[in-house]
């Protein structure tokens, strides 16, 4: 098994929503941390007994700090969020291959809640050198207050005509023009925002339930399994 351990110090915390916090870390030892956007690291906060968890990096390699955006769900995530600034932590990684390969087709990203994290890193990274293929993110949340990185996503879409972010809410009805849909993502919605279904790669990220639902929906739409890439958070 790989042993890719590196020490970091927590330097900043930012509340993204009422139950999501971004923790930003500085690598100890000077050198930048090399990773591919979409990858994750394994971490274990000091205060828990059991084995730690994997968290996707939401920053990009050219950022000064490495950021993990974490939702409060378990005692591990709560312990992570409660970690005092100045504490050190060991990152084991980076691991994973949840990112579009270099010969990019047009991409549809289906994100549920905290599942936006790898996509956020990927699109920011591509945007640095210009987004040349069409990327559409359909981003599902319960209410408007739950949308993570709302302002950053809005700026990215206004700066990049090839990037579209469709916001849908499942537990709030609204006439707010920034919200595109007020229901769960279904095949009609996917079809509406991705008229050219062939030559498109689909990426799904979110909870086990969300990824499972989207997987089954895409199969009902006869999308080839080889064109679907998934990452479920648990």
């Amino acid at each position, binding site marked *: 098994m790989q042993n890719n351990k590196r020490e970091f110090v927590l330097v900043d915390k930012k509340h993204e929503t009422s139950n999501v916090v971004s923790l930003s870390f500085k690598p100890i030892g000077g050198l930048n941390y090399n990773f591919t956007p979409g990858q994750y690291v394994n971490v274990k906060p000091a205060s828990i007994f059991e084995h730690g968890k994997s968290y996707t990096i939401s920053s990009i390699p050219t950022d000064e700090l490495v950021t993990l955006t974490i939702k409060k769900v378990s*005692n591990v995530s709560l312990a992570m969020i409660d970690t005092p600034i100045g504490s050190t932590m060991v990152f084991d990684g980076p691991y994973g291959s949840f990112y579009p390969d270099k010969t990019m087709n047009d991409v549809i990203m289906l994100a549920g809640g905290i599942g936006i994290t790898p996509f956020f890193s990927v699109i920011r990274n591509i945007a640095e050198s210009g987004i040349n293929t069409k990327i559409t993110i359909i981003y599902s949340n319960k209410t408007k207050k739950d949308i993570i990185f709302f302002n950053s996503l809005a700026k990215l879409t206004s700066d990049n005509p090839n990037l579209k972010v469709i916001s849908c809410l499942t537990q709030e009805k609204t006439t707010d023009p920034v919200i595109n849909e007020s229901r769960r993502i279904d095949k009609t919605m996917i079809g509406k925002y991705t008229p050219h279904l062939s030559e498109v790669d689909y990426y799904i990220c979110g909870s086990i339930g969300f990824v499972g639902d989207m997987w089954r929906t895409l199969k009902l739409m006869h999308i080839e399994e080889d064109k679907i890439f998934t990452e479920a958070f648990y």
Partner: protein
Amino acid sequence: MNSNDFINSYINAKIISTMKRIYLDNASTTPIDEKVLSTMLSYLKETAGNPSSLHYEGRLAKGAIERSRTKIAEIIGAKSNEIIFTSGGTESDSLAILGIARANQKNGKHIIVSCIEHKAILNSCKKLEKEGFEITYLDVDNDGLISLEQLKSSIKPATTLVSIMYANNEIGTVQPIKQIAKIIKDSKISAPIFHSDACQAAGSLLIDINKLGVDALTISSSKIYGPKGVGCLYITDKNQIEPITFGGDQENHIRPGTENVEAIVGLAEALSISENKRQAENQRLQKIRDYFLSKILKNINNVSINGGVNNRLPNNINVSIRGVEGESLVLLLDNKGVACSTGSACSSADLSPSHVLMQIGTPLELAHCSVRFTLGRHTQIKDIDDTISILTECVKKIRSMSSIK
């Protein structure tokens, strides 16, 4: 599911259960004693009244409850009015922690418990923390015993309740209840109420509340060959307790609701039988347990014992078998007729390993390999010999396909 599906699955289950079963999970629950069952049935046949009703049928039901209450009180050395009937050990524990803490909060809001209490105690404490209570969780050593020194130094003027489980359900550790009671009683700093969860202890250990020195005690029927879904909480009549559920005035308003009469009858009968058999059963079970453990250690290598060898319930074995994940072993054993349990993370709903094993310092990888066997009234030496050969075979199979050699 319609009634045909229900019948078909019951028939399938019966087919499987015709294989010889060796039940070694008595700490989870015990099979009902035949005498308890017949007592409950004869009671059930005779009356269907609500104990709160004024009429004859109601009075019969009420009489059955009160006779059960008196029986239980006599066994533990308490007064009848000090016994509250509940739906089982969990409810009794919750009622003890929440009910006593809240009723006495004018005297302080500090509670002391051990870190290896049952989740019913620990999660009730978590609830109290949200209500502004301070909880001290006493550490345990590698054997699972609390430090009497730490207990003594943790008592402060605001301490109103101490709850320490008599015997632990996972590793069988028996705490020195009498000494704990003495420390609490002799304290000049505070006069907290002393509660003990005796769910695993009843039927194995002395439960006379006067000799133990406890102010409150939880008993569970399902651990003493009684029916599931009933238990009781003893609390001295001079101590305050508040209800945690609300309704009519049954159980002196402390635990309202139409009583589970036949189950209460069963609980009393079960406790009486357990108490009568206790000494003889302890000796018998200890011999069988020690034989079982020696055979495990002889036949299987890389086995470690979880919890101390002394101060342990006579029927409890908890070991970690290196390279053999707990859930996979339990399921293979089950397929061959042996019922037991595990403290592995994979077997729990929230994927965390047993908190008890963590607190006694068991390394994580060994916690995932833990298996618990708890012997009972029906366990015979022949069962152990059969279990050993099945266990050896199952361990061999799992180890042959294990990533950990």
